[in-house]
């Protein structure tokens, strides 16, 4: 470790430290979802047939559209950092805005998907669901919890993006100080990462 840097860190802001902190936080998020993935893995192992049956009721197309939407939002997010590094503030704002818009598309899509399921009585405690086998009940339980928790993260992400747009506008985040935007980006990519696994686990594997 170069100590002149460490000393500097005492006096100036420590972007490097901020990034370490953010990554550590992302690990906690990863493990938070990881716990759910463990539950999923165990139940798929125990109730392979029920899971297979239930997963066929999800619409792969909806899942795929949402995957593409999130991947694209990750792209715009990543590019917004390049933009601010080059000092192109307006472009950066536009890209963060695009990220936010795509997140909204994701949520709307999710909303229609969930309400359709609810209409079919496939919600926790719903009569339709309780008549099914244990494996299917657990599958839908996990489906709602995992995609729900993910959706909450998307919503939080949208709030963060809105703040970032304001910060970019006021110059609080600028060409020389953009670690906040970088960290928001890291968060957003993690949300994307989680979805990259949720998508095959719920929509693709039967």
């Amino acid at each position, binding site marked *: *470790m170069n*100590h*002149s840097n*460490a*000393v500097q*860190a*005492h006096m100036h802001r*420590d972007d*490097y*430290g901020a990034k*370490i*902190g953010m990554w*550590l*936080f992302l*690990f*906690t*998020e*990863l*493990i*938070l*979802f*990881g*716990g*759910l993935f*463990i*539950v999923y893995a*165990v*139940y798929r192992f*125990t*109730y392979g047939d029920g899971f297979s049956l239930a997963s066929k009721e999800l619409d792969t197309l909806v899942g795929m559209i949402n995957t593409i939407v999130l991947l694209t939002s990750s792209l715009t997010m990543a590019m917004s950092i390049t933009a601010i590094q080059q000092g192109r503030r307006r472009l950066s704002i536009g890209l963060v805005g695009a990220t936010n818009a795509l997140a909204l598309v994701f949520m709307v899509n999710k909303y229609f998907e969930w309400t359709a399921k609810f209409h079919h009585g496939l919600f*926790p*405690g719903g009569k339709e669901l309780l008549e099914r*086998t*244990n*494996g299917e*009940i*657990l599958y*839908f*339980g*996990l489906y*709602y*919890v995992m995609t729900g928790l993910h959706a909450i993260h998307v919503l939080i992400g949208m709030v963060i993006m809105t703040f970032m747009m304001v910060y970019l506008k006021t110059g609080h985040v600028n060409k020389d100080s953009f670690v906040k935007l970088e960290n928001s980006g890291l968060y957003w990519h993690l949300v994307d990462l989680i979805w990259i696994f949720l998508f095959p686990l719920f929509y693709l594997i039967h």
Partner: protein
Amino acid sequence: MSNHALASQSARTDFMRAAGSRKGILSWILSTDHKRIGILYMIAMGIFFAVGVLFGLLIRLELIAPGKTIMEAQTYNSVFTLHGIIMIFLFIIPGLPAVFGNFFLPILIGARDVSFPRLNLLSWWLFVAGGLMAIVSVFLPGGPADTGWTFYIPYSVRTSTNVIPALLAAFTLGFSSILTGINFVTTVHRLRAPGMTWFRMPLFIWSLYATGWVQVLATPIVGITLLLVVVERALGVGIFDPALGGDPILYQHLFWIYSHPAVYIMILPAMGLISEVIPVFARRTIFGYSFIAFSSIAIALLGSLVWAHHMFTVGMSDTAQWIFSLLTFLVSIPSAIKVFNWVSTLYKGSIELEPPMLFALAFIFQFSIGGFTGLMQGALALNMHLHDTSFIVAHFHYVMFGGTGFGIFAAMHYWFPKMFGKMYNKARANVSFILIFIGFNVLYFPLFIAGYMGMPRRYYDYLPEFQSLHFISTIGSWILVLGLIMMVANLLMGLRNGSRASSNPWGGTTLEWTIQSPPTVENFETIPVVATGPYDYSRYERGEHA
């Protein structure tokens, strides 16, 4: 440090009195100064500890004789649940890292604060919020949770008591713990003073660093698990409930994936603290520095892989049984290495039995008993007999209280003069130590015997053959509480009218002893440059001490 620097520093106001932008209590509860936050934790934790002790005392009083003594079974079940939740989440886990880690981690590495001071304040607020939630759950209609602190499924889904507030309390406290972990790991990476290489860090820092990682990587698992129980109870989502096909054992796996490493979150900082105290009072360098440092990492690592030894009787696969049993035995080795190194540090030292040293030596003795009885439970055949008996209760109290608890007491007596600039009455501290030591052992040792004889744990009532052991144990609890009251009173008296403490009353060599007592807001006027290891006592060896 030159005399000039010392003189100019003593003129500066310390962090207790420093005028900030806010007045009165707000200058404390909104402060981002790591030292003030440490003291805030200490106050909050002290209150929760008192409540926890009271509940423990009530448990012991109920068990003094068979049959109903002072309370109904339902009350008893809630009392031991709350005793567990409070002592684990609100005392033992935050005890050393949040109080003394916050106060001394930046100072010991030569920094002015932690990396994220505002996040640090947020952790404290979350801690208080979690504690309040736990307390509120007692008074809400439905009554306090009666599930035991483990919240085992399916009982926790079926009981009508206030499980959800208790779960949310534990979740919030877990979140607070995670934020502290993130802060400490980042601080250790980023804010070490020039020359403070990894192997010049005090061992307390090593242990906090290892603890920080465990907090970051294990706590989220229990967070999500408790949340799942919440959604299960609140929304009827099928996750663990066997009525919906769920697997109660999966809950236990997830619960212990965190809660066993949590034991190491509790004990590691205490081990680090002991490694600080012993060299100071033996006036010599620690024996086997790097072995102690690496054993902290090894404990954090291996300790994360042994959770299912809490579950040997649930009927796991044989493969899981032997793997977890073997790993459990292996985790004892780094602990043994530490104990041997501590004892060797006494060899050819120049030992003064000040109060912190007494607590530290008692730690080694009691932690060893806790460790050896832990080996017994790691053995598969024996575990079948001992599991869920009062043998376990005795074992983990020997580790948690006899170990970490005594570590916290050692830290309080060790750093008290630095934190407050005053000295307590040492003679009274010694007497309270003796009472606590005797009371502790009288309280918990009989439970080993009762457990081996077949006394199950979490029992409101018991068979007559266990009465004499329970009676002795309850007597022990009175001695212990007497000692605790005396210790706290002595410290508070020291705070009020203790004699002025010098900046280095024990002759320590780590960085906190180079600054004034109590420290200034900035800790260091100029960031020190570190040139030697943390325990350089060569001046005493040469006979040149002032």
